[in-house]
């Protein structure tokens, strides 16, 4: 079914993450805070440094709008960032809150997701992420549902295999964990036919383990 003939809604980042995490997709721990003080408290609990983002149902392009604050080292920094972000919210954003998450470090970024093709229906996608992702165009896709053999094949089919091996002092990518991301996406799409697309971008490889630090799920109304 072509996605463009239906009207769709994008879930908020935290709702998107909750949905995908329930199918085993590894998501960085995070908390929602209504105000800057609560955000600072959440950051203390998570441990510094943290990331603070503005979260809301109608917010899709956070980075473009400057709604992400990275590498905040203490409670004061979190409070200041939180106040800033709330000030940037517009009426169209609807109900907003502050999303606090640990800063996930890793020099490698992947992308993974779900996409609907007019011929083949919903598909699982894995690709090389980062700022050069589009230029590199190293992406593999499979029809939902996939099994572990398909997931392993997808990982093997990426052209940039060097990125999956030991890299700049970081261990090789944990293939079981990466397969679990793909299988989780497939399971989510199978279980919830409302899903039209999903984006885990980036999927940061931290200490060899892929962790989604951002997620957006688009559902059919």
């Amino acid at each position, binding site marked *: 079914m072509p996605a463009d003939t239906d009207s769709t809604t994008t879930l908020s980042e935290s709702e998107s993450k909750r949905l995908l995490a329930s199918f085993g997709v590894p998501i960085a721990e995070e908390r929602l805070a209504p105000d800057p003080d609560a955000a600072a408290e959440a950051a203390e609990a998570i441990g510094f440094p943290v990331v603070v983002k503005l979260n809301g149902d109608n917010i899709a392009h956070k980075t473009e709008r400057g709604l992400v604050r990275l590498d905040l080292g203490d409670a004061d920094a979190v409070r200041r960032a939180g106040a800033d972000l709330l000030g940037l919210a517009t009426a169209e954003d609807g109900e907003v809150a502050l999303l606090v998450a640990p800063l996930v470090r890793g020099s490698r970024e992947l992308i993974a997701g779900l996409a609907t*093709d*007019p*011929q*083949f*229906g919903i*598909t699982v996608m894995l690709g090389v992420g980062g700022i050069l992702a589009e230029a590199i165009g190293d*992406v*593999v*896709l*499979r*029809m939902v549902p*996939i099994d572990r*053999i*398909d997931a392993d*094949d*997808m990982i093997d*089919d990426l052209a940039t295999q060097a990125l999956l091996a030991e890299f700049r002092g970081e261990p090789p990518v944990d293939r079981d964990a990466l397969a679990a991301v793909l299988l989780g996406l497939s399971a989510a799409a199978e279980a919830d036919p409302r899903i039209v697309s999903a984006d885990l971008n980036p999927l940061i490889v931290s200490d060899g383990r892929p962790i989604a630090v951002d997620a957006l799920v688009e559902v059919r109304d």
Partner: protein
Amino acid sequence: MPTLDQFRALFEPRGVVVAGASTHPGKFGFVSLHNLLSAGYQGKVFATNLAGEEVLGIQTVPSVLDIPEGEADLVFVCTPSAANPQLLRDCASRGITAAFITSAGYGEAGDEGRAAEEELVALAEELGMLIAGPNGQGVVSTPVGLCAQIVAPNPPAGRIGVASQSGNFVSSFMNFGVASGIGFSRGISAGNAAMTTVADYLEYYGQDPATAVGLAYVEGLTDGRGFLERLRGVTAHKPVVVVKGGATSGGQRAAASHTGSLATDDRVFDGACRQAGITRAKTIDEAFDAAASFATQPLPRGNRVVVLTTAGGWGVVTADAIAQTSLELITLPEDLLAQIDTKLPPRWSRNNPVDLAGGETRDTIPEVMAMVAEHPDVDAIIYLGLGIQSNQAKLMRTGSFYPDHGLERIVDYHERQDARFAQAAAEISERTGKPILTATELAVADPENAGPATVRATGRMCYPTSHRAVTALDHMWRYARFRSRRAG
């Protein structure tokens, strides 16, 4: 989906009627009857012609109703589209259950044509008749000597079953077959595929004992997922090779105007093929090579390859080609090295590629080939250098000194040797159940050379370059791996 009985009527008819036979050698109604008769079809041949003229020695009749009942299963339709509904009714009354329709003026010809096509399909369903086409080039079935086509060629008999959305690619594949000696079991152009689609034919080939591998050209798919799901049922027990037009946006624009299909991201099609165990080839020659290999070589049990060569450079380039694939150029095991040492002078490569370095005596090549093939750590061999001796022999035979100066004897010896080597490759492959692919440009540069000629005589393909052999073997290994992983 047509029934097995209907497919039998199409591919193994007891008799064929050419409807609309013509006395004019430029018309389809003449050419198809000519091809049918010339190819040595084993069943009865009838033809209709409004004037009841004699064509190519066949006394035509004005109507299908003049043909005895139960003697023909297939009608090959060259009549104008307006005449076809009555024709099909008449055919059904004579017990005919399959029709190949070459007539144009259907789905490809605007709204009116589309309506006519829908009516034709509804009528065929009512009559219990299979329709191939319309607007197709023809059907080939070598087990019964059937070549009912409005174009050449008549391919050699073999085990490839081809189905194509574009009739000219049936011809292309079969021309490769004529050139390489690798034959076909069945071949059909789906034309507008009004009732019977490429997936239908491939599913039939999956059940057809005469066919070892399906080969298809597709352009537009109206239901990609359905197509792949159906082919998955075939690849579970038989390989299917697909080449798809419209992989780029430029190609997609061309395909949309040709077959009216929806564009899809090529990477999705690629991934779906991987999931379904379909061998996807980038080009027509790559597709043919893969199908020819599936049809004539045993499936490899692993990816460990040894290259056997009589010259260094060929081996190096082949090693490079292997490095780009899922195949592995293995390090030679110690015991195999020691075995080969007993057959070659010390200057041989002692490495993979096994470069015989010109150290061969009369029996070296077959002996070393057998040692390598029999080793449990080796899954496949690529053999290079066949035909060099016969190439020199040709120059000697056609030169001004022949047959004096001992030339007659050496020419004979060279040609015998290359023939032996080619035979050894086939015999050792059969005995060990491991693929041995022979590659030399002489396959196309001089097909009559005793080397490639003997490879063809053993029923195998002589690959024109080692790169093509490597690519074909890679496809075979990927499919073998799919089968072993998906077993049970």
